[in-house]
């Protein structure tokens, strides 16, 4: 391969960006065509829409009482907008464009992957001096190395499937094209995050995915709460982003460069200087703070369950498979920074383990199917950080990949269920769906089996690898290992509780009003592909004890070498084969036992939930509210802040400025005279204040000089 000309690498992020722009234009044209005065002119375009989606319109005119059956086109308008039928118009082309852009990016990602074989460790596009004023210079290049290649394959591969699924799921939405514009823009930002050669490009992607997440969580803002959830997610992410930015500044100060590969290469040279080593630790800590925001770890995880207000494909793509793994990517990318400090590593592992436990236990009692999956995602991300905390970079990436497969599958499956149940998300009102939705059922089973770690499925190998590494570290890591095992048990239990409540047992909905139906093939085919990946994804990283090489670990070797070299200085941790077999067996037993318990408890219906709620109401509430963390934020952070600012607004603002008087119009009108007098009084206050401030400054400095 010609190493000098890799300009084509720019096409990987550029394709989704172009797709986003085109979908945006389509959105504009559609909206324009829908405006009353233009309706006639746009009729020609609408004809196309009728041809393709004829049944859909009939269906959502009166979807409450209609009998959809299993028709392929009966899904529009289910999203609760309460609007009359919406002509798709030109926006019907949007999914085609978006999917094509994704598929193109995926094809290029494969091309890059094939180019990385053998001794080639990274492909780099020519640097683009994006800003260069002589005093101020920013270069940007696209680097596809072993790590970003894995990330890119997941983002574009799983992303393509989710885009296809979304074409069916979002059909009939009045902002169909806008959805794909945002979705493609998200993929662009995510690709910039993983492909940038330097911290600045990474930061653009880092903040960009937050922005797109905000748009997409709030996509159905007309319902009210999604807009609020979007704002919460964005602001909590921004807390992490602030931490990330400070960490990056520290890195730039230490290494004098924005370039990621230079930073990675420079770490070992710094460690001789204790002061610099301390600054490196600080930088790592701040960057980890950023990772906690984006990857929903303690204490910043509470936005992710709320983010489920977004359409389900968004939950699958952004809040399970890609964006939330950005923190993992960042940590592996900068692995020597973390490997330099065993204490920092342990801290990361502990945060991951505790987050996994809290979120896993919370998932046990949720009734909303998407919230179960959301807490499960937080919990699984916790596993990944636990893996990172042991320095098992490849294991964390392995779990990231398999999790992307099975969690995307479970979310999309849940979306299919929600869709078939006319927007019902409460599992207590489901049950017995397996005969109504066979394709969704079987694929969901595959995802659930992988998540719960049933032997030989993808999740089994990736999770057990992390736990084995944790066990091998010994010492305090054994506690983390115990937490990990307990969480594994909970994972199996809540997963199969979810399956049992949704698909097994009796139907707990009114069959006269709800007619569950299988989703169209545009939605089920992506499910099947993901199901195959979830089952066989474990082949990427079979444990050595099974007599094969860990393909992924070997693949990532060039990226993780720097960190591994530093780790080796603190001693290596290897398990003998007997222990390894024992741990694999333990994982299998736990998964099977708790799967059985979960099914047995819930196959008969919701009685167990009610029993728990009545016999231990305190515990149920505690778990329901994620150990009261969100409530604690409200009580100890949000409320006091609100009170403080209320005081600020009422007392201080009114004292110096007559804001409240101006605001209260009616009052002011009746006592207009008084207002004038108060106001002119205020001008004197201003003068006094300004004079005093100036005098104070002068006094202070005279004193300093004198």
């Amino acid at each position, binding site marked *: 391969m010609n190493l000098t000309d890799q300009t084509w690498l720019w096409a990987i992020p550029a394709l989704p960006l172009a797709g986003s722009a085109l979908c945006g234009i389509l959105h504009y044209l559609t909206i324009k065509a829908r405006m009353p005065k233009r309706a006639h002119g746009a009729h020609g375009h609408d004809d196309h829409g009728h041809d393709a989606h004829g049944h859909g319109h009939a269906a959502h005119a009166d979807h409450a009482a209609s009998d959809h059956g299993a028709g392929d086109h009966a899904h529009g308008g289910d999203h609760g907008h309460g609007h009359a039928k919406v002509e798709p118009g030109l926006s019907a082309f949007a999914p085609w464009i978006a999917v094509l852009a994704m598929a193109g990016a995926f094809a290029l990602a494969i091309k890059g992957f094939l180019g990385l074989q053998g001794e080639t460790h990274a492909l780099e596009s020519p640097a683009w001096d994006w800003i260069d004023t002589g005093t101020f210079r920013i270069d940007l290049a696209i680097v596809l190395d072993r790590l970003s290649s894995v990330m890119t394959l997941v983002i574009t591969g799983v992303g393509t499937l989710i885009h296809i699924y979304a074409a069916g799921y979002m059909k009939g939405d009045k902002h169909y094209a806008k959805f794909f514009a945002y979705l493609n823009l998200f993929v662009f930002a995510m690709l910039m995050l993983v492909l940038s050669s330097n911290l600045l490009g990474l930061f653009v992607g880092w903040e960009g995915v937050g922005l797109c997440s905000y748009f997409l969580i709030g996509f159905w803002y007309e319902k009210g709460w999604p807009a609020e959830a979007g704002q919460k997610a964005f602001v909590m992410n921004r807390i992490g982003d602030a931490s990330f930015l400070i960490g990056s500044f520290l890195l730039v100060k230490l290494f004098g460069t924005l370039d990621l590969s230079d930073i990675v290469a420079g770490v070992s040279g710094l460690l001789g200087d204790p002061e610099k080593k301390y600054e490196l630790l600080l930088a790592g800590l701040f960057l980890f703070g950023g990772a906690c925001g984006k990857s929903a770890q303690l204490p910043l995880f509470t936005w992710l369950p709320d983010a489920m207000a977004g359409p389900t494909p968004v939950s699958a793509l952004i809040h399970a498979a890609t964006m939330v793994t950005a923190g993992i990517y960042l940590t592996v990318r900068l692995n020597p920074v973390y490997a330099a400090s065993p204490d920092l590593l342990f801290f990361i592992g502990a945060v991951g383990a505790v987050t996994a436990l809290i979120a896993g236990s919370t998932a046990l009692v949720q009734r909303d199917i998407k919230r179960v999956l959301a807490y499960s995602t937080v919990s699984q991300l916790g596993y990944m950080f636990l893996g990172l905390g042991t320095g098992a970079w490849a294991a964390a990436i392995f779990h990231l990949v398999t999790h992307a497969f099975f969690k995307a599958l479970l979310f999309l499956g849940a979306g299919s269920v929600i869709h078939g149940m006319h927007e019902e998300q409460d599992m207590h009102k489901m049950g017995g769906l397996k005969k109504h939705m066979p394709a969704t059922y079987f694929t969901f089973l595959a995802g659930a089996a992988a998540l719960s770690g049933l032997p030989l499925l993808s999740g089994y190998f990736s999770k057990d690898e992390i736990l084995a590494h944790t066990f091998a570290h010994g010492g305090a890591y054994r506690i983390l290992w115990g937490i990990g095992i307990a969480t594994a048990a909970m994972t199996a239990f809540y997963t199969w509780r979810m399956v049992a409540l949704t698909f097994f047992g009796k139907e707990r909905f009114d069959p006269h009003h709800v007619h569950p139906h299988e989703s169209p093939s545009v939605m089920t085919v992506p499910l099947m592909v993901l199901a195959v990946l979830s089952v066989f994804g474990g082949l990427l990283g079979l444990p050595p004890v099974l007599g094969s090489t860990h393909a992924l670990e070997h693949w990532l070797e060039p990226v993780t070498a720097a960190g591994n070299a530093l780790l080796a200085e603190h001693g290596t941790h290897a398990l003998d084969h007997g222990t390894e077999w024992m741990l694999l067996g333990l994982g299998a037993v736990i998964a099977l036992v708790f799967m059985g318990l979960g099914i047995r408890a819930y196959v008969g219906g919701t009685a167990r939930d009610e029993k728990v709620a009545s016999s231990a109401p305190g515990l149920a509430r505690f778990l329901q509210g994620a150990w009261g963390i969100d409530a604690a934020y409200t009580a100890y952070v949000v409320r006091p802040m609100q009170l403080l600012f209320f005081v600020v607004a009422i007392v201080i603002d009114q004292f110096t400025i007559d804001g409240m008087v101006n605001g209260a119009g009616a009052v002011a009108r009746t006592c207009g005279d008084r207002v004038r007098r108060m106001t002119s009084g205020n001008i004197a206050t201003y003068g006094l204040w300004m004079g005093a401030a100036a005098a104070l400054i002068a006094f202070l400095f*005279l004193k300093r000089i004198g």
Partner: protein
Amino acid sequence: MSAWLHLFTLELAVVAIALLVLLWDAFAPAAGRAVGWTTALLLGGVFAASFFVDGRGTVPHGVFVRDEWVVFHERLFLAAGILGVLGSIDWLATRTPKRQAEYYALLLFSLAGMMLLAGARDWILLVTCFELMSMPLYVLCAYGKQDGPASEPKLAAEAGLKLFITGAASSGLTLFGLALVVGMTGTTHVGGIGANPAPLTIVGMLFVLAGFGFKVGAVPFHMWVPDTYQGAPTPFVAFLSVAPKAAGLATLAIVLLGGWSADSSVWLPVLLVLAGASMVVGNLFALPQTDARRLLGFSGVAQIGYALLALGAMSRGGLAMTLFFVATYVFTNLGVFFVLHAAAEEGGGHSLARIAGLSRRSPWLGGALLVFLLSLAGIPFVAGFWAKLFVFMEAWNAGLVGLVVLGVALAVIGLYYYLTVARSTYMADGDRTTPVPTGFALRAAILVCLIFVVGLGLWPRPLVEAADRAAAGIVSGR
């Protein structure tokens, strides 16, 4: 004499337009939008001419210097002036059709003052330009004194009076300080202080600094900002919130980085305190506000804090990023106020509840507002992202670690209240559902702002380069 008159071509052109508008009104009073559009188009011509008029040079005795720094500011002020005029056309034509010309003429005089200000290197010229800029603003502030909904008090006259009295007081501070400085040093040249100034000179400098602190609305000289923004007519507030602030910052740069750079140990701590206090007070006081214009007033205080932070970096790069920051702020804030003006047009009032349902009534206005707010918050793909990032980078490089950490943390709060404004436009419970009526001129102004905010977000390089060249006029070297 005529050897240097060509340096003032653009300024003279602006004054000529002002006189033309006044004469037009005197001889052939025209209702409708003709005066406004003529003004906007002529200003556009001046803006275009700024790319062809190649007048660089120095007036004898170095009183006025026209270099890249001045060219940058002339263009920035002209752009703000054009947009300010565009945004006012529809409003003036419907509210006060009989007396439009005076509004435009006053705005143009103020504009001429700002344009001259950037090149002034002599205290007397500097103060004169500053007053030429400020006086018309006092009048304009009270211009729509009958405006507003019947149920609310008429605040414009009060706002004008407040702006005038506090403005006069701050001018007094500046002049008092200058009297001390000039008296002690014996020269009216801005750079005439030199190293190791006498204590009385330092007192004078600090009073000058306080006076300029008022003009840019930095804490603790910020109290007029929210009051004036809330009371004055919105299209004017749009202009007031950007152009005079850019002029004030330019003056601070000329005086501090240009004239007094040798004495930075005197003023730098003050500047940094002003920057930090503005960021803290602006961001925290913006949080509980329920009036959109008042909220934006405090937000403006916070934004000035960020700009002062970059100025405090005391480097060419820092100054360039101050200029970049201010330029993006000009387009963003003009855009925000124009959208608010459009949304409040029928019925008036600017409480957050008033814009509820905006993005449903007029998706494009709602979308534009969201873009502007995201830019103020510093989010990628729009101009404000680079502005904030570059400011923090330069300040960090200059060693202002504590203030950068503070600023980064406060930017989180900023995002929260900007999104709160955005969220209220999503809310469906607005009492009206029909599209917001907007005039063509106002829409054009919003569109131009939108193009700049998004365009600079995707491709900031031209502005960064221009700002860097301009900064070289004040801070030489790297």
